[in-house]
């Protein structure tokens, strides 16, 4: 119903605008409202888009912006890209000064926080009016941007944490690539085996990554945060303590993973510097499956990689969830939220645009777009599609939104008070886990009063 109405709207508007190109867009298989410029067709409109990411993302996003501009010559686009940390520093300052760009990128924890603080423009009206077309988007994925019953962002692609495995290294080591159902016990054996047989590290960096905290508890069927968001959902530190003890064994006794001081040098650097890319380790952590594209591109086409799910606890379940890799959202400071919404629609629904973006921000959420991309996918993309399809069969549910204060805990408690001191050996895993739990509970209680 909505769709028919808006199509009629579209015809009328595009006829009024007298733009022939728009009609051809109408004929596309998506039959969407992509080029349906609202009444402001002739006015010059400014749009500003800022995102975080590396050079590859910058190149392809810029191309998509140019494509959008070619179809909408009245839009004057400016854009910037920054590293993840600089991005949040800049955008936080811009939020304070009411100077946010029209479109910005978000992660799951920040989206919840920024929506709740009224910094983002709800998109529901544009979804209803058809400016953002959700026809070919599975309803589960539509709601991934929903906070307090309003949709604040569209997912730029689906994603999951995972482990990147160098298949050539496994072959050289004569070790079988483990099945998706492997446990942390299996993991430790595989890492040691790879390291012994190859003389390189079995696993690279971030075996203490903050996401694993949640995944490990989820493997024991416990979501990390209490339903009311006022505390953590556990009092038993054993799972995370055991995990850190395994890391210390691998690091200090078996030398099968790099020492943290070695790791800390590369983990703020780009894909080219990563251990797996340089062949210094046989497996490495992927904070998002989409990162495989950048890693594989940096490593070279002649290499072979596969993404494995994170191991599960003995007798536990798969704790990973498929989630948005990131979101694109319209901010409250946007003077032209409707045009910004049009761009988001273009970003998720246009086949041509997505062929350029090529799953670098995660697997496209639009099923028609995904099918078109799958038809001629390159090796990295194929590996990602394959991984998410396997995971869809066996994974935990994506829990969203997170309570307030989560980002604070992840940055200001988890690493400086827990993971880093344990790996440097200045705190015992047991003591640090108590500190982690107590400080987290304090922050959650304070932030979700």
């Amino acid at each position: 119903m909505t769709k028919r109405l808006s199509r009629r709207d579209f015809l009328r508007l595009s006829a009024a605008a007298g733009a022939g190109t728009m009609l051809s867009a109408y004929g596309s298989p998506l039959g969407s409202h992509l080029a349906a410029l609202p009444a402001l067709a002739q006015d010059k409109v400014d749009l500003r888009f800022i995102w975080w990411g590396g050079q590859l993302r910058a190149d392809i996003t810029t191309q998509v912006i140019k494509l959008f501009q070619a179809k909408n010559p009245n839009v004057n686009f400016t854009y910037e890209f920054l590293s993840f940390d600089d991005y949040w520093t800049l955008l936080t300052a811009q939020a304070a000064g009411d100077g946010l760009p029209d479109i910005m990128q978000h992660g799951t924890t920040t989206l919840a926080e920024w929506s709740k603080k009224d910094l983002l423009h709800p998109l529901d009206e544009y979804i209803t009016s058809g400016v953002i077309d959700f026809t070919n988007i599975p309803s589960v994925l539509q709601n991934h941007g929903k906070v307090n019953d309003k949709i604040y962002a569209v997912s730029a692609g689906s994603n999951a944490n995972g482990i990147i495995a160098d298949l050539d290294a496994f072959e050289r080591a004569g070790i079988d690539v483990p099945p998706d159902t492997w446990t942390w016990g299996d993991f430790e054996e595989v890492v040691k085996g790879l390291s012994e047989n190859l003389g390189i590290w079995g696993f690279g960096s971030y075996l203490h990554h903050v996401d694993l905290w949640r995944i490990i508890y989820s493997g024991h069927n416990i979501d990390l945060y209490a339903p009311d968001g006022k505390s953590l959902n556990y009092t038993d530190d054993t799972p995370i303590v055991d995990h850190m003890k395994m890391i210390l064994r691998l690091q200090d006794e078996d030398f099968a993973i790099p020492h943290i001081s070695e790791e800390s040098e590369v983990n703020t650097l780009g894909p080219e510097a990563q251990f797996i890319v340089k062949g210094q380790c046989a497996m490495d952590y992927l904070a998002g499956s989409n990162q495989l594209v950048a890693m594989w591109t940096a490593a070279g086409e002649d290499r072979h990689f596969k993404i494995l799910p994170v191991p599960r606890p003995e007798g536990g379940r798969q704790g990973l969830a498929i989630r948005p890799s990131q979101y694109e959202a319209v901010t409250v400071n946007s003077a032209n939220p409707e045009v910004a919404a049009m761009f988001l629609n273009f970003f998720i629904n246009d086949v041509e645009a997505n062929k350029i973006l090529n799953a670098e921000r995660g697997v496209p959420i639009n099923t028609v777009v995904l099918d078109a991309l799958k038809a001629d996918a390159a090796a990295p993309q194929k590996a990602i599609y394959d991984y998410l399809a396997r995971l869809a069969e066996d994974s935990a549910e994506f829990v969203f939104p997170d309570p307030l204060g989560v980002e604070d805990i992840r940055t200001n408690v988890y690493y400086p008070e827990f993971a880093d001191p344990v790996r440097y050996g200045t705190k015992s895993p047991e003591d640090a886990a108590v500190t982690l739990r107590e400080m987290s509970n304090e922050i959650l209680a304070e932030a979700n009063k």
Partner: protein
Amino acid sequence: MTSVLQKDVSKVGLDKRTVAQKGKKHWRHNNLMGYLFISPWLIGFLGLTLIPIATSLALSFTHYDILSGHVEWTGLENFKRMFYDDPRYWRAVRATFKFAFISVPLKLLFALLVADLLYNARRFVGVYRAIYYAPSIVGGSVAVAVMWRQIFSGRGLVNDLMLEVGLERKLWLGDIKYAIWTLILMAVWQFGSPMLIFLAGLKQIPNEYYEAASIDGAGAISKFTRITLPLLTPVIFFNLVMQLIFSFMTFTQAYVVSGGTGKPLDTTLFYSLYVYIRSFGVGANMGYGSAMAWVMLVVIAAFTGVIFLSSRFWVFYDTTEN
């Protein structure tokens, strides 16, 4: 003031009264012109210095979430949290003190040494002076810090040299024992400005003293310790105060070399970097950041005060010439 003026002129008569009034007008006009001329500075001072400083003092008693713009008066909560509930704060204090108390004496020593060498040099003094001063000009910049990170990285220049002479590779930036020393070294390397001041100070010392000492049979070392050092104490005093203040406020180097995190394990988490992290980073609370900044101001003032108070015991002002 007006009444005083009027009383004065009423005694001397009408003529002078008009003169005085004219003068007053003139005086007012002059002042106005004066203020007008300094107004760019005045506006800048008020808008960019005084008002922000006053605001930050007020903010230090609040919880100010810059994302939502929500300000809440919390009294002394920020200071309580800083001193009792924030282990990271004390690590920042520790890192800053360690940096300041090691780098400042080393830097001054080095600056004095080079200044003395340059003072005695006969040829190309200008060239040397420029060369040694150069690091101080570029020293605070991001580019140098980036270069520093490269030099000390796992596969950087320093490790190449270590391997070359048969030593083992060290992870300078990742190791909690070494990381801060790379920053101390960078600070010492930027000895240019205290060196120039020392050089100027050395030139102030009258040559006759040295000649007299030579006649009395003094050697180079006793000339340095008995003449140069005492007469240079005012300059040492000045350099010490300035460098200590600068080192307490070091930001860029730590930010770049540690990637903005103070890693490894907060050993390079300098105070101003932590202020920045808490003010602008995740969970940004400008109130807490302001409170920390004010504590830093008090601490710097205290240290400067102590140095000033102690100065009468060790700073020697040469008043005999007058």
